[in-house]
């Protein structure tokens, strides 16, 4: 460009490739279940759980575990109603106190019966 060179006083810098790019902020914030790194085989079970096989990774996944199961259950379309989960009976503090009272009452009754038998002898 001998006649016209708008860069003759200053060449335009290229973006640095060895530093974080603006897009990295988005990519870093993404959950791994939706951003499978290169070299990792991923399978999808019928329920929607993604299985990452640790054997094929370069140390990206904890090597102690044989396989890591990532729960991807939220990937359900809005049109499909979620299946209601079965009711789970869990002990409550109210239940616990009733059981304790019953045990104490049974113990007192047992002791009373034993004392009455001794007196008769």
């Amino acid at each position, binding site marked *: *460009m001998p*006649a*016209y*060179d*708008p860069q003759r006083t200053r060449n*335009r810098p*290229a*973006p640095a*490739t060895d530093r974080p*790019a*603006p*897009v*990295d902020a*988005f*990519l870093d914030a*993404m*959950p791994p*279940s*939706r*951003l*499978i*790194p*290169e070299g990792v085989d991923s399978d999808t079970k019928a329920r929607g759980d993604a299985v990452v096989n640790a054997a094929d990774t370069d140390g990206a996944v904890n090597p102690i575990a044989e396989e890591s199961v990532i729960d991807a259950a*939220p*990937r*359900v*379309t*809005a*049109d499909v109603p979620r299946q209601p989960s079965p009711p789970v009976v869990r002990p409550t503090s109210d239940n616990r106190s009733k059981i304790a009272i019953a045990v104490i009452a049974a113990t007192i009754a047992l002791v009373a019966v034993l004392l009455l038998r001794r007196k008769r002898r």
Partner: protein
Amino acid sequence: MPIVAVVNQKGGVGKTTVTLGLASAAAQRGKRVLVVDLDPQANATSGLGVWEPATTVDLALETDRPGSASSLAVPTAWVLESGMAPDLLASTPALSAREPQLANDPVGAQDRLQLALEGNDYDLVVIDCPPSLGLLTINGLFAADRALIVTEPGAWASDGVANVQLTISRIAARRNGRPEVAGIAVNRLGRTRDAHYWHTMLLEQYGSQVFAPVHMRAAVAEASAQSLPIHGLGNRQGASDAAQEFDTLLDSVVPEMTGSGGRVVAPAPSASTEPIGGSDASV
């Protein structure tokens, strides 16, 4: 099925013009084309003659809706000799409100468009990305198997090429090489020495990645304003030249469509009495 993201974080370089030009060229060949308008400015939507669409791309991005693209697409008003008209995942200005919601989604919302496009039976999908780096553009790049970088021969637009190449490479590095850069389309190449200089710079810097340019022509801007395909402008001066350039660009971006049946070859370029640079062809 090729999925092309037409992208540049720099605005005003003609992404929508190139998107519509590619869609026009493919539909003219009798191909089933889906245009995805991810830009809240909705210029591709109006350029395809769609006003107040019943469904928009916003529904595909609202939540995970695998395979929903075909049912959410609306027909367009284009009429081509082939009898084929592109379908459209339309945009509205309300789409701008979706982006912050996508960014704050705890599950991750960068692949919703990819999910929506699963299993569609179009021959070609062209995604018009917005002129910024955000979750809308990232959705477009996640869904695409190739990216077409659009620029114009100018200093700031040339800077944008380097930036968007870096963005694509960072995504591809984490996505097993997807999307790949199909190439660089130089849009609105005029006759000024500055345009010639920056076009030469792009060729020197990116070599064979730079496709044959799309020249600045008033016919392209008129097609946009009239919501007509560039291949449907008839005998309008410069229209056939522009149509031929988009045919060539389609061959470069989607080489698997080259020489396919039903292609209508544009007439030979006429003597150039066309007023070049008389109007802004960018959309």
